[in-house]
């Protein structure tokens, strides 16, 4: 479901499922737990070689999951744009041995090391997440989370988002087209701001009304707070192999980190 992050393809009509290679045949729960374990170990570690190894592992997972490389790396880079300012400022905000001075502010080696550490950690985690969870059909993700005992309310929230995001988008596009047909061209003036305000307001009102109709339809069919899901997830031999392999690799990373810290 990582495709939602880029706009070139239509949201949800193409779900990003279908590819996924060897990993696609694994139980979704194994993939989610694997991604979580990977994230935890990577965040805990801070020795540079271990982080580089983690990033390489994530690249390996990406290769195993057969996701298209260029779009996946672009999505990863999109995440980097959120932390770029933090990374750029770290060398200046962390005290330590000076590398160079810019307009009177000293950049430190320690700060630079911290920035690189964060960069490696974040990219490794996101890449692993995109490879393991991002290749899942959104609906499957919901089912798997529900089976992993994630609270019902959160799973329902995810399921309703999956179900209605496209309806809302279609509604937005219809309204937008109707505006265009009457010669609306957005520019920097109060008329444009007001019109967009109306558009957003109208979508909110319609969404609320729709939610009331949906609740009515659910009540008509005896809704009493639970949405039963019909999925047939079962752990198999390949899941055990995957868990053992990933577990061993993560353990090795963690052991290396501990050994380094002990020295």
């Amino acid at each position, binding site marked *: 479901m990582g495709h939602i992050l880029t706009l070139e393809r239509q949201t*949800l*009509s193409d779900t990003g499922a279908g590819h996924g290679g060897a990993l696609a045949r694994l139980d979704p729960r194994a993939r989610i737990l694997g991604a979580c374990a990977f994230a935890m170990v990577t965040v805990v570690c801070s020795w540079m070689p271990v982080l580089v190894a983690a990033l390489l592992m994530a690249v390996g997972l990406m290769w195993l999951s057969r996701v298209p490389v260029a779009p996946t790396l672009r999505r990863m880079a999109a995440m980097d744009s959120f932390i770029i300012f933090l990374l750029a400022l770290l060398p200046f905000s962390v005290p330590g041995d000076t590398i160079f001075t810019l307009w009177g502010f000293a950049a430190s080696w320690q700060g630079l090391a911290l920035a690189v550490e964060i960069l490696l950690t974040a990219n490794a985690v996101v890449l692993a997440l995109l490879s393991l969870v991002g290749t899942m*059909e959104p*609906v499957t993700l*919901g*089912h798997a989370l529900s089976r992993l005992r994630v609270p019902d309310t959160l799973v329902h929230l995810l*399921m*309703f988002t*999956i*179900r*209605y995001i*496209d*309806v809302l988008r279609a509604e937005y596009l219809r309204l937008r087209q109707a505006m265009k047909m009457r010669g609306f061209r957005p520019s920097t003036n109060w008329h444009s701001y007001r019109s967009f305000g109306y558009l957003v307001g109208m979508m909110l009102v319609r969404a609320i009304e*729709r939610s009331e*109709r*949906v609740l*009515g*339809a*659910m*009540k*008509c*069919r*005896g*809704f*009493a707070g639970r*949405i*039963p*899901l*019909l999925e047939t997830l079962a752990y198999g031999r390949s899941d055990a192999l995957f868990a053992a392999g990933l577990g061993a690799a993560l353990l090795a990373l963690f052991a290396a980190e501990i050994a380094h810290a002990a020295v």
Partner: protein
Amino acid sequence: MPLFELADIRFGYPGQALILRGASLALHEGQRLSITGPNGAGKSTLLRIMVGLLRPDAGRVVAFGKPRRTEAEFHEVRRRAGLVFQDPDDQLFCPTVAEDIAFGPLNLGKTRAEAVAIVDRTLDRLDLMHLRDRITYKLSGGEKRLVTLATVLAMEPEVLLLDEPTNALDEANEARLVEILQSLPQPMVLVSHDARFRAKIASESLRLADGVLAPDPAP
């Protein structure tokens, strides 16, 4: 004894004038009623009042032989009367078609195996088996409509309430819907603007205008 009896129903949405001003209706076993009327006359509102999604300001709703006033009293009504909504997107909210159809039976306390059997039986009867594992938001408009009918029929309702079921249907899908509805044994209340469609399904026609139901002069 009528299945449904609405007597002198008055209803207005908050902050607006009364939309129903003393509407009365009776639906008997074996009867197929159609309701027509101008936009905003309150046709959908009337169906919602019948299953208790809206409460009238005044008037009496009697369903399956008992007066119904509270939410708890309407639970049984909703189990025995199936309402097909105007917009299929309002009704299909589960990820897959099979899950959406199983939602009602599971709420009625059926086991998963029983629910799956009902799903298969219903889809088979409507000749929609090919849609079983499709994802609801990826269905076409016509498919969505037929699946909403399946979700309601899966609860084996004694009465069907249909709100503009031909909305956004092409000719082929409309013909399919007519065929299905004609084959069903249930009494129905059908809200539709389409006179030809009404004539094919319902034997009697009512007109809702100025908040009151009256026999349609030109059915």
